[in-house]
């Protein structure tokens, strides 16, 4: 039945491509989360009226974040080719996509982290200060837990964006479902392959969304 509907689909290749996509997404989500969290915290803490108020640092980080957020991803990959070569020695394969994926997504997530942190009641931070908390304690025990639902829903959105980024990265040789859809589907006019790759990407996105939503609602005790 499947063979008549999708005559050109090579399931072995399809599964391999799916694994590559999942690998790229998972690694880049983890690193984006860490990097974006650090950048977001710095953006929040150095803003006016905050613990590490420093307008210069804030403006510098803010500008870097805005620049990288504004570059279209497909151009970012091309721009980063020398950088990727320098650190990985190759432009082919899943790992080659990672630098671009992370550099493209982390600034985007950093802004979401910053927004999440700004939603924390100032009074709660003040209460922690009045108890004699150090800044590191405030970060670990107040800022991160109190903004957790926003951090999780933010990383969900970012992870979904990253799935589509991996597909784009695939077009220029990074492997994964995007690569398969482009090379096997588009260039050989095998629409059933493109269609199947799309379906799998959609399933991945739905699963990420579902997991993200359920964690967010479980965490949110407000």
């Amino acid at each position, binding site marked *: 039945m499947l063979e008549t509907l999708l005559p050109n689909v090579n399931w072995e290749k399809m599964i391999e491509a799916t694994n590559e996509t999942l690998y790229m997404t998972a690694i880049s989500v983890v690193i984006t989360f860490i990097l974006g969290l650090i950048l977001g915290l710095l953006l929040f803490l150095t803003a006016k009226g905050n613990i590490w108020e420093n307008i210069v640092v804030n403006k510098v980080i803010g500008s870097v974040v805005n620049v990288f957020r504004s570059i279209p991803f497909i151009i970012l990959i091309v721009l980063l080719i020398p950088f990727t070569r320098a650190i990985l020695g190759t432009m082919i394969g899943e790992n080659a996509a990672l630098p671009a994926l992370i550099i493209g997504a982390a600034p985007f997530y950093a802004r979401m982290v910053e927004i999440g942190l700004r939603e924390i009641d100032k009074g709660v931070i*003040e*209460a922690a*200060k*009045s108890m*004699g*908390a150090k800044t590191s*304690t405030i970060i670990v025990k107040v800022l991160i837990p*109190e903004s957790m639902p926003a951090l999780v829903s933010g990383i969900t959105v970012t992870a979904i964006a990253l799935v589509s980024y991996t597909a784009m990265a695939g077009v220029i040789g990074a492997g994964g479902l995007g690569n398969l859809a482009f090379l096997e589907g588009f260039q050989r006019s095998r629409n059933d392959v493109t269609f199947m790759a799309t379906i799998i990407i959609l399933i991945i996105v739905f699963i990420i969304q579902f997991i993200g939503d359920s964690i967010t609602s479980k965490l949110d*005790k407000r």
Partner: protein
Amino acid sequence: MISIKDVKKIYSSRQGKVTAVDNVNLEITEGEIFGVIGYSGAGKSTLIRMLNGLEIPTEGSVVVAKNEVSKIKGSSLRKARQEISMIFQHFNLLWSRTVRENIAFPLEIAGVPKGQRMKRVDELIRLVGLEGREDAYPSQLSGGQKQRVGIARALANNPKVLLCDEATSALDPQTTDSILELLVDINKRLGLTIVLITHEMHVIRKICHRVAVMEGGKVVELGPVLDVFKHPKEEITKRFVQQVTEPEETKETIEHLLELYPHGTVVQLGFVGEAAEQPLITNLIRHYNVTVNILQGKISQTQNGSYGTLFIHLDGESEELSKAISYIESQQVGVEVISNA
């Protein structure tokens, strides 16, 4: 315990400089419940926040429990803050933590080991009467319960001073009373010095020993609560005292009565402490040829005695009237003739 000397706080904003606190001097003794009252913008909030270093004075010094909070920084300030707790108008609990975890938070900050922490939390939960709600999240609690968590959290590290920043302003009257009773109880049991700021004279009347009235950044009146109730000097203090002694409708009632009784005099009597228990009205009727009509009355309890006001209408010969009034004056009762009809 607390000594505030020549303290000034000036904020620079785009519109120019704003003096939030202007040359304030206060000495607060150990075990005292000290109230600061003022309308919003009077500088009371800035003043209380200088007591734990959340605000640094532009000039002057603030010493709390032997720590010069206006000067120290870093770890010594953090250490000092563990002895100067604060509770807030909007409670400022962490929504992501349960009651138990919220109360444990200051203990975590102080580095108390886990076993001891849990023991202390249980004690505090009993102290503020929150048994059975240990594992609830703040969103599942009522306002009064949230403030109880706030108080328990503030007491966790055995502070010497408790600062209350409009702690009852977000609560309904009944809950306010129960929280105030809890504060008095803590003050008596633990000998804790309490400084509170409020805009409600009711709060001052109910629990404070001394009160400072603030207006425009300055302390305009200062003294034991009963004295301030008895002899308010400043216009603003009189208005605050009226919040408690005269219900809103008094003025209208009196105007109405003056129309009804065109003869005689309406007199406001102020009773303080002992005098409130004498049979003044009985003596008045027995010894003078006047008729007495009680219009309105109220007795308020303060921490150092009771304070009452009574409005009466006196009628009779003018000679008898003035004799009657001088009799009342001789009885250590405050008399104010409101109007001669």
